[in-house]
């Protein structure tokens, strides 16, 4: 489309939205970063996204990208395979992550040592299809993420439902587990998997360390079920209308949605209105 004939002034380079092939700058002083390529000393964008400039480094952050995975990321994953002393976990990335048997909490106390019988009954901890709340510990040589659940709040997820969103809409923050005021717990996985569940008091979890791998849901009342569906729909509409998903934006969406029936939240008109309402409140707050 618009091919610039003159290189833009330095302060104009950043935060432009570009498409693949757009000239960013032909000034040879700049170095190329991710999302760009060089032809005849000019830097062009190779992806569709926003231009970022740090000193002399020019890069383009794509609008849509596979979840990459950083050390320390809090994620939600689904077990795809049970292998020798490890599980393979789908983390919505280019490769499945790995959860080692030595990286999980064993029932009967955090300090319990791994025994041979644990190796033989790995499915009693996590089986195929289970959802796990974990943290990225490190990388393997091939780039696969190594996960761990060595903290009381991590582990198997139950009492709710999964919502899949674009990973770039979930910002990294200090806390990824939120107890919303409406009585629903939300786990915001940075990889785009979000778990919405009934609120379970933290004390209950600590008391029953034997039950941390249970598959049994608690009793969920009709009101709780409706609230979970409402929050799940709010997250889905925030996702489709490209609004950042944080506990704040979810709460704003929830409050704006109370005037509508749960099943209507995903219709185009109502969803667009709600997204606008959330954006206005977020702008006001900023």
């Amino acid at each position, binding site marked *: 489309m618009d091919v610039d004939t003159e290189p833009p002034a330095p302060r104009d380079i950043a935060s432009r939205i570009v498409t693949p092939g757009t000239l960013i700058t032909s000034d040879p002083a700049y170095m190329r970063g991710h999302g760009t390529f060089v032809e005849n000393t000019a830097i062009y964008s190779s992806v569709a996204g926003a231009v970022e400039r740090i000193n002399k480094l020019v890069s383009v952050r794509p609008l849509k990208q596979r979840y990459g995975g950083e050390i320390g990321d809090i994620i939600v994953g689904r077990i795809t395979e049970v292998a020798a002393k490890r599980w393979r976990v789908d983390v919505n990335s280019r490769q499945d992550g790995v959860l080692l048997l030595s990286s999980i909490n064993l029932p009967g106390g955090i300090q319990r040592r791994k025994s041979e019988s644990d190796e033989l009954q790995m499915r009693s901890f996590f089986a195929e299809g289970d959802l796990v709340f974990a943290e990225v510990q490190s990388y393997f040589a091939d780039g696969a993420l190594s996960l761990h659940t060595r903290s009381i709040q991590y582990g198997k997820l139950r009492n709710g439902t999964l919502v899949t969103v674009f990973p770039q809409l979930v910002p990294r923050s200090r806390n990824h587990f939120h107890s919303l005021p409406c009585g629903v717990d939300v786990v915001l996985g940075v990889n785009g998997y979000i778990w919405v569940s009934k609120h379970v008091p933290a004390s209950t979890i600590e008391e029953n360390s034997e039950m941390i791998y249970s598959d049994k849901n608690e009793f969920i009342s009709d009101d709780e079920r409706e609230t979970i569906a409402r929050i799940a729909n709010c997250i889905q509409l925030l996702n489709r209308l*490209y609004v950042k998903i944080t506990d704040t934006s979810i709460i704003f969406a929830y409050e704006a949605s109370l005037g509508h029936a749960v099943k209507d939240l995903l219709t185009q008109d109502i969803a667009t209105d709600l997204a606008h309402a959330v954006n206005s409140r977020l702008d006001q707050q900023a």
Partner: protein
Amino acid sequence: MASLVLSPAEQDFIIRGIEKGFRGDGRGNLDRREVTLRTGMISQASGSARCRIGNLGVGTDVLVGVKAEVNAWTPGEPEALGSVVCNVECSPSAAQEFEGRGAEEINVELTQLLDRVISRGSQGAGGLDLSALCIIPKQAYWVLHVDALVLDVRGSIADALVMAARAALMDTRLPRVVVETITDDSGTAQAEFDVVDDAEDLVALKGVSGLPVAVTFNQVGKRYVVDASEQEEAVTQAKLTVAVSPALEICAIQKGGIFRGFQPSLMSEILQTAQRIAKEELTRFVALYEEAAKHKEQQSDGPSTGSTFLVAF
């Protein structure tokens, strides 16, 4: 189609929700999702339609094209009827398990379903008028190739498939054929036909408005749901696709799911409910088709750039 593996906790959550009549996205057991329909997007085809079942720009997406050909009659074929040949293919990009030969079984299942609903239906249950597709008896007839491509899967493929096929057939226009009887020197009369090569001189298919609509019922626990999402299909024990004509007659039934069967009493309840739901779906279809036709006329301005992610297709 066990594509999605859910944890026991998720499955229990879904099943209990359905038992209470409150599904994961707040729908009741008989509520359906939004449908987007567009027609005439394949200019080389005689008719085409694309149907998506799902909300906010994501859903089960099926594209159907209809291509008409003239076939020479061979002995053994019906003497004065045209024919309809269906083929359904699931694109490997629709789901991971469709890669390579993974989609073979489901392609066959869906092709059989479409066949039952459209071409078998034409031979008696009030669908397409096949005799109108005959050009010259015992000589030439139109054959309609109905080709469907499943582009994305989020549950309820059968419903989207039949809706798209129905719309594509309604969108189909055949060139007009002129038939003349020529008497040669020895006195024998022979019929000859000529296909008029005028892009404006086109004829619609007869009997399309009699084509049925399909509604799929998935049994979950002791209840059943209509328009199941992918997650709900993962906990389905057995499913029944019922095709109902505008005259509210049952045209075709296909049972899917190899794990369990239906209780006969549940089946008759489902068939009754199918009539009621089909009536609503037929009304909705008329409105959707009109909107698609309007959209087709305005299409000349190029693609629309409305609310980014929610552009129709």
